[in-house]
């Protein structure tokens, strides 16, 4: 098929090698990663700090996904310039599908470490779904697996990221390979360039560990999240677009563009349509990505905040690993008298059924055991605190229950809480 085996046409080789790297490193990470809001952050910390080569493997996976997106994008442009959509439909359609799937993999994967970045990324994905026309509310519910971001959401992103999307990529790649002569697909120059790109990525990943933000509980209000490089264009665009229109730019338009490009071999005036769509896409993505980098650089306060975050991350890397605590065989729990019904209804979700506290992902909810030993925690204080937590120096998510509980119910809860002992 290929008449001219030039160096500029080796994007297939690069994409193939980078996909292989993503699969390999992804499988390795799955040996330690636990997709639960309790343990995701801990297991990623463990990979970064304790496991041999863990930081390198995770960095390969992180930056590899960004490089892969860039090279698939270049690959599609190259196919377009070669008029592959007319000459080799399978190659063309496979390229477009891979582009969409690689973006989807990047989007879902970003949530998995469950650090502050992941938290914001999940929020943005939620907003993008919610803003979709007509089916937005439904799309949001299906993505989250419920009405709020929860452990179910993390499991869904995990299942999509490690099962559904890789399987689809595998199917597309297999289809592409079996319908094309392998010799035409992967020549010696592909092999050389693919190897070179891998070696550069490997060295890059050695020097730059993948970023890992603070847990949500530890992230200050001034924490600035940024998406992966392949989504900076979307991130920057969302700054200019009011409200729900973001979903149009972030989800609907790219979807339409990908669908039109897939259907291109059957469309008339192929060249005109693809040229304008791709051209527009390239210009938009390039401009927005550049503007995003520049605006972060130029604004001195933003730059200073990023410097602080980088310093905090560097300091975190030098702190010893902090293991989680899990219970294997049943241990006898602290038995205390039954909690008041209103406690179980409003408080137990965060503070535990017996006041033992809880950790939901990076959010830590304090235990109430021995709380009466602390200053300003008498029964009267606790009743007043339930009405106005900020007066007692407490931060959200602790809220006022003045509108939910009667005075008597608050007193009942307070009298039960002061009896809780470790």
């Amino acid at each position, binding site marked *: 098929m290929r008449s001219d085996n030039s160096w500029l046409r080796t994007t297939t080789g690069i994409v193939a*090698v980078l996909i292989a790297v993503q699969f390999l490193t992804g499988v390795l990470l799955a040996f330690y990663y636990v997709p639960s809001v309790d343990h995701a952050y801990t297991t990623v910390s463990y990979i970064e700090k304790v496991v*041999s*080569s863990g930081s390198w493997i995770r960095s390969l996976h992180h930056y590899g996904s960004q490089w892969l997106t860039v090279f698939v994008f270049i690959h599609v442009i190259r196919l377009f310039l070669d008029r592959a959509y007319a000459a080799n439909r399978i190659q063309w359609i496979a390229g477009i599908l891979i582009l969409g799937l690689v973006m989807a993999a990047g989007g879902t994967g970003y949530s998995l470490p469950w650090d502050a970045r992941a938290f914001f990324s999940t929020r943005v994905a939620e907003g993008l779904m919610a803003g979709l026309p007509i089916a937005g509310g439904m799309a949001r519910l299906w993505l989250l697996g419920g009405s709020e971001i929860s452990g179910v959401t993390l499991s869904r992103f995990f299942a999509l990221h490690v099962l559904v999307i890789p399987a689809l990529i595998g199917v597309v790649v297999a289809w592409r390979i079996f319908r094309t002569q392998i010799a035409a697909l992967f020549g010696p120059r592909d092999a050389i360039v693919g190897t070179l790109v891998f070696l550069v990525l490997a060295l890059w990943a050695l020097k730059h560990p993948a970023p890992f933000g603070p847990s949500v509980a530890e992230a200050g209000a001034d924490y600035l999240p940024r998406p992966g490089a392949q989504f900076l264009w979307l991130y920057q665009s969302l700054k200019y677009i009011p409200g729900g229109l973001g979903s149009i730019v972030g989800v609907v338009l790219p979807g339409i563009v990908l669908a039109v490009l897939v259907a291109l071999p059957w469309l008339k005036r192929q060249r005109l349509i693809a040229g304008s769509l791709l051209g527009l896409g390239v210009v938009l993505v390039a401009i927005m990505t550049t503007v995003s980098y520049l605006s972060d650089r130029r604004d001195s306060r933003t730059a200073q905040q990023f410097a602080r975050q980088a310093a905090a991350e560097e300091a975190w890397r030098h702190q010893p690993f902090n293991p989680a*605590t*899990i*219970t*294997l065989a*049943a241990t006898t729990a602290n038995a205390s008298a039954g909690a008041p019904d209103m406690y179980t209804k409003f408080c137990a979700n965060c503070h535990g059924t017996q006041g033992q506290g809880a950790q939901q992902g990076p959010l830590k909810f304090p235990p109430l055991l021995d709380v009466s030993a602390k200053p300003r925690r008498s029964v009267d204080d606790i009743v007043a605190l339930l009405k106005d937590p900020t007066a007692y120096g407490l931060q959200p998510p602790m809220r006022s229950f003045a509108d939910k509980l009667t005075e008597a119910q608050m007193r009942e809860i307070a009298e039960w809480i002061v009896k809780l002992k470790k």
Partner: protein
Amino acid sequence: MNIDTSRRSFLKFLPLAAVFVSIGGAAFRFLRPKLSAATDAWLDVASVSELSGPQPISRKIVAEQITGWAITTEEHNVFVLPAKNNQVVSAICPHEGCEVAWEQNRNRFSCPCHESFFAADGSRISGPAQRGLDALPARVQDGKLQVQYISKEQATRA
């Protein structure tokens, strides 16, 4: 086969070699198991004053181990032997690791899995187990009997 084709087929292995040798080498180290570190804390078993009589006394201790990314808390059954100067033995059968039970009417420990039997002092009577019940390091501190938990595997190596 001419020289050009053999060069071509050799080159195809280049990226395979680069990716698999580097990531594969790291993968061995990456996946290598980490040995669990038992915390050598002394765990309270009972007050010495409440231990007496010829019968082994069943107690539970909660031991912590650093396993991978977590500190794992696990409850273990132990027996205090007041007749043997308050020695504490693990309830884990040294054969395959099931938990033995004390049969009071027959004055012996029996393992529910493979019928190993142990005397009231923990020594082996019969069955596939090759040694008696494992004794745990014990001490008395402030009137409390305390032990350090060691697993069957650790006892086997010791």
